[in-house]
């Protein structure tokens, strides 16, 4: 740009302006995202969550984590699940992921051991990545559940880190996987 300014001081001016405008405009435009339908992506998240659960199961005194955490319910009745449409399924999944994100955030602040912190950070990163995967399947981000009443139907409380991680693993294996496996965007690609 400097060279251009020096050498072509007359012609570079409009070009620079044009490039700047285009760059600014490009940030706002959503780029088309290819649907992430490979089940191995979620499988990796599931395995890492299981590894974290296994690693912190023997943590003494709960790794110093105290308090209660609100977690979603993980039970899946296929008969009932199939009666729900994709949006309802997505709502359950996204609200549950949000609850886990909050709980893991609170855990991260209360632990002091570096090894535990690394594991918790990894799981939080995976939760964020899952959000990206859901977005790629054209499952729009939904606002957090506003009222606890809604959350009572689909939530419960846990009081230990190991139980929190255990529920987190079950949630990923169940509802999240069912949603991703049967997402309409992936069904269209397979057929």
């Amino acid at each position, binding site marked *: 740009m400097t060279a251009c300014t020096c050498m072509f001081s007359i012609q570079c001016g409009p070009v620079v302006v044009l490039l700047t405008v285009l760059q600014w405009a490009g940030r706002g435009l959503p780029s088309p995202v290819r649907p992430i339908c490979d089940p191995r992506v979620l499988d990796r998240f599931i395995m890492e969550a299981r590894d974290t659960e296994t690693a912190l199961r023997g943590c003494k005194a709960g790794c110093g984590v105290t308090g209660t955490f609100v977690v979603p319910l993980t039970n899946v009745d296929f*008969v009932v699940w199939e009666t729900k449409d994709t949006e309802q399924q997505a709502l359950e999944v996204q609200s549950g992921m949000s609850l886990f994100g909050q709980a893991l955030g609170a855990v991260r602040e209360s632990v002091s051991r570096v090894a535990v912190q690394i594991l918790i950070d990894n799981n939080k990163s995976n939760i964020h990545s899952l959000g990206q995967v859901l977005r790629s399947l054209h499952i729009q981000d939904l606002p957090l559940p506003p009222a606890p009443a809604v959350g009572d139907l689909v939530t419960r409380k846990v009081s230990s880190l190991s139980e929190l991680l255990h529920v987190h693993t079950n*949630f990923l294996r169940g509802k999240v996987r069912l949603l991703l496996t049967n997402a309409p965007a992936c069904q269209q690609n397979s057929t």
Partner: protein
Amino acid sequence: MTNNNLNKLLVFCVLFCAQKTSIVHGAQALETKVALLLHAEPENPKCFAEGMSDLTCFWEEDEERAGSADQYSFIYTYQNENSSECSVTALPAAGGKRLYFCRLSQTQLFVPLDIRVFRDDLLIHNRSLFIEVVFLLDPPANLTLTSTGMQGQLKASWLPPSLKYMGDSMMYEVSYAMAGSHIGKVEAVQASSELILRGLQSGTKYKVRIRVKLDGISYSGYWSAWTDPVLMETMPGDLDPLIVSLSLIISLVLTLLSLLVLMSHRRFLLKKIWPIIPTPESKFQGLFKVYGGDFQEWLGHSTGGLWLRPTYFYSEEFPAPLEVLSEVSLGPVLPSSALPPKASEALGEEEDEDKKLKRVDPALMEGWRETPQEHWLMDQLRAIHKHPAPWTQSSLLESHDAYVTLNAQNHSVEEPLDDILEETLPLQVLFASGRTSSESRSDLGSVQQSSGSGRLSSQSSFEYPNHTWPSKGPGYTYMAVADSGVSMDYSPMSSNKIDDIGKGVIYTNEYKNEIPAHRRPIGTPIHFAF
């Protein structure tokens, strides 16, 4: 109406049969799964899920202690939910056992399930499990083997269990082995419905079977039962070009090696196949080529080659024994009356020579005693040596391999030598004096005495290749002897003789050519060889 009734009856029968078949099949499948879980699952009750919304639990008890199904209660509780009860059924089992079943038709996955079994209000079993990790699926259906069109390959395809949401979580094990063999291989494949088996033998029948299991990430469970084996034969093998080329190279190498061996042993083989007809031509030089087989003419023109050719003496005729007798006898000199028979035979044509020899013999006799006659004898011998032709006519040499010459130096011995060696003409000269004993004529094996005159020495004909007998002085009398190597026996002389000999050479009976060194006259060559 009748037709309608018949149709209905027919449909009913078909449905009944089908249902019965399915029931039977289902019963067999259940029996198989029960057997599998009894082996694989240690906890009680043993539970398995066959589909997306079912759970079957069972436990086993001995017939003796077993009660009725009413006595048992199966209580199950999902997490954060109220307990529920399942009705228990009983079925007889093999080995004096009884099985109690409970089956749930609506289940929740990804949530803990607590199970408690009571018998008459007594808790007998307690277990907590996740249903999504106890799947026990049916074996894959429609296992089919097809040819891929390539050598040593078969394609196995099957129908995955029809479980929604779980197709990408299934993994399979394909077991294949040659028909009739118990040793096989297993290949694993995941989330697929076909597999190409490679590395198979051509033109061989293989049996293939398969089983399925969930991969364990989201869903897990036990290995299903194996399918019934399916047989198929692979494509017949063509001639592998590599094998053909290697075979050609090996055969070429073997051919070359055999040719080399044959060439190296061709003479031996030729002799065996075409044995050479022996001809005497090598022994009779020029007999056939020059004289056309006329032996008499050949004899007349042949030179002393016989004597010069050692090969002549290596004929295959049996060697005749050689006996050389040399005695110093005190008795009167016997007249030389007879020659050795062979010598006489050989010299039958040489009567002149015989007479000459006989005339010489008395002289020889005297010569042994007196030196002047000895000189005369030497002269005679030299004269004979100068004309070796008659020697060749001696047939005595036919049977002998080597010459043995005895040089006898007679100075003081009174008795003449009585050597008994194989005659040549010189021998005849010497023996004409009659010193040869009758035994020695044909017996060539022993040399009884070699020294009547003191010193004896023997010389081998080999040392004189040209057959020029060197004159060694008046003290030596030469006798060319052909001997086949038979032992020569030198009999010990009498004590008187020994004394007379004094410093002469004494040959003992031991034919070792051992001459006491101190007794050997200096300068006397002693060579004795056969």
